[in-house]
């Protein structure tokens, strides 16, 4: 099996501090845990009053942070730090569509560091759906014409007014660790797409995925993936949480298998986030929400729980120890759940009600790490 990863990536990291970047509707906070992951300290806010959709650390240098922000009045931008958040500076040219294209970026939704062999390269996904690249560490951004100007883009995505309630989004920008030219993206709505030429051209990759909301439930595109993940040690293993189920795909196959069918019927298989175990490609977590009737987007029955599979989605176990047992009407957004790389993996998530929950034992027990924050959009461990 080709992995494209160094041996060090396959082993658990020694105990050390864990920092969570908490991006919220009202700013950015950090939550830092000691080596035991029992004691956490919250710091912030940065960018108070800004809607921060995502913040990411560059794993290639361990010190560059990017944060995607906008306010109710002001247009979208990207802030950069090259000292792990001590100081910040605005991007000189944030993601923006080409003048004359008629399209405008409402907000940058997703930030993704590029391939390990390409320091300084970042990708951004926007609402409405656009793909952007920076080659200078996020200082300046340019549209990826192979996607933004693709003749089929509008057919794939629909109009800029279509899509999810907070605007249609391009997210889950994944780079194959074996090949920087091999990329995946996901769009709500639009579906999952693959490029083998660094984004110059794209093909839909949605066979087997249901689209119950379309006239043709087996359409080639137009699906609503919520979160797409690629396992870093087994890059041919893809999972995704969809509007219509949970799916797995082992390349070079091109037909997704619905692994959500083994979820309890009373809970269903709809949710936003998905997290993979950093070393075991068969272990993953999802956080279901109520997608019935008018799509309440809350925990089913007001009883939040993560579900974990340790066999690639054949079976799922409910993990709710420590979480509220009733009357907890929050959920977890697609970027708001993450895992660390400790020997016993820590899993954390942030809620729409402004709480951060963490497990230091792979989801067996949960503890509230912070509360009273604004609506949480993203949680990333670094």
């Amino acid at each position, binding site marked *: 099996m080709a992995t494209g990863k160094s041996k060090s990536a396959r082993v658990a990291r020694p105990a050390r501090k864990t920092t969570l970047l908490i991006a919220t509707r009202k700013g950015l906070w950090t939550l830092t845990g000691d080596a035991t992951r029992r004691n956490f300290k919250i710091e912030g806010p940065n960018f108070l009053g800004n809607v921060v959709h995502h913040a990411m650390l560059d794993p290639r240098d361990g010190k560059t942070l990017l944060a995607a922000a906008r*306010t*109710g*009045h*002001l*247009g979208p*931008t990207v802030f950069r730090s090259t000292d792990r958040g001590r100081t910040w500076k*605005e*991007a*000189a040219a*944030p993601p*923006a*569509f*080409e*003048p*004359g*294209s*008629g*399209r*405008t*970026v409402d907000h940058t939704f997703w930030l993704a560091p590029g391939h390990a062999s390409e320091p300084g390269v970042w990708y951004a996904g926007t609402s409405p759906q656009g793909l952007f690249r920076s080659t200078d560490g996020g200082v300046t951004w340019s549209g990826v014409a192979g996607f933004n100007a693709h003749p089929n883009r509008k057919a794939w995505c629909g109009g800029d007014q279509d899509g999810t309630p907070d605007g249609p989004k391009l997210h889950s920008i994944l780079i194959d660790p074996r090949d920087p030219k091999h990329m995946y993206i996901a769009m709500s709505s639009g579906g999952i797409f693959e490029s083998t030429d660094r984004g110059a051209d794209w093909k839909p990759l949605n066979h087997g995925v249901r689209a119950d909301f379309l006239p043709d439930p087996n359409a080639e595109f137009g699906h609503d993936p919520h979160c797409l993940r690629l396992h870093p040690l087994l890059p041919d293993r893809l999972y995704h949480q969809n509007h219509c189920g949970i799916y797995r795909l082992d390349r070079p196959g091109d037909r997704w298998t619905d692994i959500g069918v083994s979820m309890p019927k009373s809970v269903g298989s709809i949710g936003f986030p998905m997290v993979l175990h950093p070393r075991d490609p068969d272990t993953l977590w999802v956080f279901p929400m109520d997608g019935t009737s008018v799509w309440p987007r809350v925990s089913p029955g007001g009883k939040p729980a993560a579900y974990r599979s340790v066999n690639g989605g054949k079976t799922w176990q409910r993990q709710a120890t420590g979480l509220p047992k009733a009357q907890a009407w929050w959920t977890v957004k697609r970027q708001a759940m993450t895992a660390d790389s400790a020997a016993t993996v820590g899993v954390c998530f942030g809620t729409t009600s402004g709480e951060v929950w963490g497990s230091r034992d792979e989801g067996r027990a949960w503890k509230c790490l912070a509360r009273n924050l604004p609506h949480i959009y993203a949680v990333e461990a670094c």
Partner: protein
Amino acid sequence: MQVRIPGLLRSYTNGAETVTLELSGEASLADVLGDLDDRFPGFKFRIVDEQGAMRPHIRFFLDGVQARDLATPAGRSAELMIVGALSGG
């Protein structure tokens, strides 16, 4: 021209509430915003989108009269007021 800067943009002007610009008599509102962006990089994109349209919750007043188009003549105005419009409860 005196430009009155709203609180939400003062991070660009080092906290200054007003900025003084020297303009030609032919300058348009777009020219004024271009000058401001030269002086305070990034300023313009937060209030005018990449297609050259005013952002939805931003208003411009030249000598107290709302300018609805960036082509509006501005070079002979004494004051530009930039407003983050009331757009919520």
